[in-house]
């Protein structure tokens, strides 16, 4: 068994969820890398819009901090945001959302912590999550640190709706259900009682007790819980040599921070960074 990092495990697991002839949008580093891995491995007709709408439907390239410079050469279209939302309205979106809070029925929150009117912490705003809700079969999420502040009983602000209302009233167009969740501890879905969170697999070395301890509610677990499949040698080679040779995935690890950023920047641009910071 080859050695691998947590990020590599996550990318490998996330990549398995993509199907072809639809968009795989890379809004975060891990989602972007997982879409690229999927396209490189088993979904050749995945439509990538990693980094820039202007370089949409591009080939698989090495991930960069500024992707447009590498993607433009193989990008097949300049996808307007209007057309992108038409594609989304037709269910042609697949996305792993990097959420800040996620609750037991799969609602997600990237907008505010605490009361919206005067937040304890203002995050980035709802962005496209309330829209993705109406353009995906399911919304998949990744969370960097699984703990009781991130995996909570109820989110402070609903950006992506969860299952607590049973999917809402019957409608001609079905809203996305919460799909898979990957964290630093395991893989989860919402097939527990009342469509609540359930353990799908635990990462190697992680116990159910640790998951329960790190979760803001009781996660449903049934039967023998499998271990999350570890990345294959081929997956690791693709991740390390093809899609992320610079190692941007480390930004999603404890290594992340300004120093790593500056180091990646220097590798990418070749230029020494000015000593301004």
């Amino acid at each position, binding site marked *: 068994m080859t050695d691998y990092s947590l990020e590599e495990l996550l990318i490998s697991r996330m990549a398995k969820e993509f199907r072809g002839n639809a968009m795989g949008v890379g809004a975060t580093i891990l989602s972007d890398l997982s879409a690229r891995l999927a396209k490189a491995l088993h979904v050749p007709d995945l439509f990538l819009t990693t980094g*820039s709408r202007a370089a949409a439907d591009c080939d698989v390239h090495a991930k960069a901090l*500024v992707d447009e410079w590498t993607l433009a050469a193989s990008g097949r279209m*300049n996808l307007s945001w209007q057309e992108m939302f038409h594609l989304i*309205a037709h269910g042609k979106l697949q996305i792993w959302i990097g959420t800040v809070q996620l609750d037991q029925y799969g609602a997600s929150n990237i*907008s505010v912590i605490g009361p919206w*009117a*005067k937040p304890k912490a*203002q995050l980035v*705003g709802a962005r496209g999550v309330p*829209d993705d809700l109406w353009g995906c079969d399911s919304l998949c999420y990744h969370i960097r640190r699984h703990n009781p502040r991130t995996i909570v009983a109820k989110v402070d602000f609903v950006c992506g709706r969860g299952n607590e209302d049973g999917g809402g009233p019957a409608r001609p167009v079905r809203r996305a259900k919460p799909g898979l969740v990957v964290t630093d501890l395991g893989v989860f879905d919402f097939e527990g009682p009342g469509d609540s969170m359930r353990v799908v697999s635990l990462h190697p070395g992680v116990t159910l007790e640790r998951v329960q301890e790190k979760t803001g509610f009781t996660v449903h677990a049934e039967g023998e819980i499998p271990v999350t499949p570890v990345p294959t040698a081929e997956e690791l080679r693709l991740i390390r040599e093809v899609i992320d040779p610079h190692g941007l995935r480390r930004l999603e690890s404890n290594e992340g921070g300004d120093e790593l950023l500056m180091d990646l920047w220097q590798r990418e641009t070749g230029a020494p960074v000015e000593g301004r910071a």
Partner: protein
Amino acid sequence: MTKTITLAKALAAVVPGSSVAFGGGGIQRKPMAAARALATADVGDLTLVAMLGGPEVDLLIGAGKVRELQFAFVGFDAFGLAPHFRRAREAGSISVVEYSEATIIAAFEAGAKNLPFLPTRFGLDTDILTTPTAPFRKIACPFSGEELLAVPALRPDVAFIHANIADRHGNAVIIGDGYADPLLLQAAKTVFVTAEKIVDELPDDAATAGGTFLSRLWIDGVIEVPRGAGMTALYPDYRFDLSAVLEYQKRATDSEWFSAWIREQ
């Protein structure tokens, strides 16, 4: 008929209480030169409009120019949160109207069509409908009865868009991601385009041909501003200035540093 003007003349269109919109997204192609000039102008009480706000929104909040912000996102993309925006929200010192990407695009699109509203399905069942400032109303489709969201038009008083290149007639080309700019352009009452370069005739080459063309019919003035996107990225002219971005995030809420930075243009 030239539409080439100065930044000062464009800024004069912004009056106290104006709603001012910015193109680009996050730390990509932000009209930073225009925003910094506005931050030092004698005009406040502004409503800012930005689908994906970045440092241009943050610095105007920091400069105390903003009464209300209408937005779907404000941040520095992969490089973190916006310091003044965070502080102002957590202090309750600005009013905000929170959209999603698709609902603010619908609002621009209604403006682009000169219609008072457009229906959408995006945003239903989420908390952007529950905020005290939410501008949306639920409606029933007159044919199917389906519940939809009506989004009222946004028609910002003044929009600033940064482009790679413009001609003297007022046409412009964005080579990289157009974001919501083509619709914002059509929705805003007055539109200024800052461009890296103003030429007599736009080139008809491969570089610009794949880009987003902005017609002079929508544009009231073009201003040549080299490095007009400041520390944000403008494909293919320059990458973002990563050290400047990181420094801003660290020091922006230090008022001494910030007031010096704002003036350093």
